[in-house]
């Protein structure tokens, strides 16, 4: 009963503080207030500071001509185009190196991960050493090292070695390969290619149906390969190879024609993908190991051979474990591509967040744009991941 007395004699405030709900509300209001206070404070400071030096906050500079050139552009661009277009060029360059990095990193990472698990002692040791060497060195160093090697040890264009009878050149100006220039009749090959894809899908469906009905197993992989690669190739030959190639050729200072992978792109691409592949290899290894050996044994005991065991039992389970950390590696790679600035690859940080920022003095605006772009990349990737996780979640009690 003493407790009841105490209750009454307490002040309203301490009563509120002792009420579970009231306390949580007070705590939350405090947090929010502190936070708002903080933001208000720094934004006010920024406004005052900008005012003293007479700047505002506006994005109109985006429509002014950029006046600088960019050496690698996926869309048409020249120095008279606007800062906005320069930003787009930067975004595309970021995406280009990120996507190609992701593809290469995934391939190399999976191969390394599987080799790491191989029963071959020597191979798994070599891969182990490689992985440890690569992932314990900062990615920026990888970029600089590879760039340094490309620029300092590869020959200048005049002495560059050629491969495939003078159609591929490797120099410190980059890797030049012939670029295709399709002739009118080339559409037939394209149609064959897409036809091949459609055919493969249809064939796969049919194979599945056939298997369901009669049990016969059709060689989907081989036929698919034939349809997608073989068929277009045959059509290409039959239509008389309707394709011209623009071969790189040394003219004046540089190679002209073909397509080039600039050393900056090359270094960034290789460094990002090799670095990330070491992490992916470990993820793949962990993913495969996470499927208990009992699963393999059970599949073997049922008479499934090794490749079928992998296809039907191990890989589907391993993927569940692999994909979430894999996506976060993809995100890391994308973010690390911002280090392009160290070697002069013109990505988003180097264009809008670099030259444009510097030429116009619009730090706030430019950095806002850069941050928003990276945030939307990661938003998209994590949305995908949530969707995937939901889709593959193992059903349990």
């Amino acid at each position: 009963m003493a407790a009841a007395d105490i209750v009454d004699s307490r002040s309203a405030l301490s009563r509120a503080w002792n009420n579970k709900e009231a306390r949580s509300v007070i705590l939350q209001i405090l947090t929010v207030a502190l936070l708002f206070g903080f933001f208000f404070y720094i934004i006010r400071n920024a406004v005052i500071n900008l005012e003293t030096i007479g700047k505002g906050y506006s994005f109109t500079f985006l429509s002014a001509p950029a006046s600088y050139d960019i050496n690698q552009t996926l869309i048409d661009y020249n120095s008279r185009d606007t800062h906005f277009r320069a930003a787009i060029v930067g975004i595309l360059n970021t995406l280009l190196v990120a996507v190609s990095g992701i593809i290469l990193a995934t391939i190399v990472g999976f191969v390394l991960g599987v080799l790491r698990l191989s029963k071959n002692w020597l191979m798994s040791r070599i891969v182990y050493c490689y992985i440890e060497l690569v992932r314990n060195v900062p990615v920026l160093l990888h970029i600089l090292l590879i760039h340094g090697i490309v620029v300092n040890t590869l020959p200048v264009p005049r002495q560059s070695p050629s491969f495939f009878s003078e159609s591929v050149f490797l120099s410190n100006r980059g890797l030049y390969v012939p670029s295709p220039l399709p002739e009118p009749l080339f559409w037939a090959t394209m149609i064959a290619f897409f036809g091949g894809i459609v055919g493969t899908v249809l064939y796969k469906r049919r194979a599945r149906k056939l298997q369901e009905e009669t049990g016969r197993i059709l060689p989907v992989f081989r036929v698919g390969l034939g349809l997608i690669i073989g068929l277009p190739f045959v059509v290409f030959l039959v239509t008389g190879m309707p394709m011209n190639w623009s071969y790189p050729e040394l003219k004046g200072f540089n190679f002209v024609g073909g397509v080039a992978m600039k050393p900056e792109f090359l270094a960034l691409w290789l460094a990002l993908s090799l670095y990330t592949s070491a992490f992916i290899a470990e993820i793949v290894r962990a993913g495969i190991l996470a499927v208990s050996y009992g699963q393999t044994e059970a599949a073997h005991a049922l008479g499934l051979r090794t490749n079928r065991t992998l296809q039907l039992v191990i890989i589907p389970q391993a993927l569940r474990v692999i994909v979430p950390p894999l996506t976060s590696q993809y995100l890391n790679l994308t973010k690390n591509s911002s280090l392009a600035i160290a070697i002069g690859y013109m990505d988003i940080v180097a264009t809008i967040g670099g030259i444009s920022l510097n030429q116009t003095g619009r730090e706030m605006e430019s950095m806002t744009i850069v941050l928003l772009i990276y945030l939307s990349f990661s938003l998209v990737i994590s949305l995908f991941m949530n969707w995937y996780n939901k889709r593959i979640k193992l059903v349990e009690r």
Partner: protein
Amino acid sequence: MSEQAIETTEMQISDEVAIEITGMHKWYGDFHVLKNINLQVRRGERIVICGPSGSGKSTMIRCINRLEEHQQGSIQVGGIELSNDLKNIDAIRREVGMVFQHFNLFPHLTVLENCTLAPIWVRKMPKREAEEAAMKYLERVKIPDQAKKYPGQLSGGQQQRVAIARSLCMNPEIMLFDEPTSALDPEMISEVLDVMIDLAKSGMTMLCVTHEMGFARKVANRVIFMDGGEIIEENEPEQFFTNPKSDRTKLFLSQILHH
């Protein structure tokens, strides 16, 4: 006692040899796990293998379907010699079903898909047919209603029954069981044993590592006692329990029956 007698007569044992192991040795590194194993199993026989932990029981039955490799001696299953030849291994694995202690169901597939996977991909059965067969076996282990669920949604006893059904779907001549009930809660043991007894009655050749002595008494027509990688004793169940030949067997029995 009388019950057991009845069961035994019910089951037929042919003269045909199902498994023949002669002078088989196996090492793990330098460790000699299996020493000079000789065993002949005829079709329809139900053999229970027991022995202390680490005595090599699991290793022995896993050698029979080549989950482990033996290094010396020979193993013949249904007349086929086990060697490195993949064809032979395939043939033998199609003959022999196996049920594991920890079920090893495929968690990403439904119960039905677990059961039809091997028939479809190994036996190349049409899906419809495989499913029908699977449903038959699921009925036999009394869980046809769980067919669409995932293993994670089932109790341990149900999972082990699915594992048995999955093996049966391949129509094996021989079934190997490696302590099928030891990972189960006590309430669930009997439901699994019931299914196994049922299977035994149907004349299936069975090798079963288990410590369920009641089961051994009921269905086994031979009990094998292993220790230190050797077969120490081979005996009729009745004899084995009441009048074991070797001292080690006696010691073992006293421990496990006491418990």
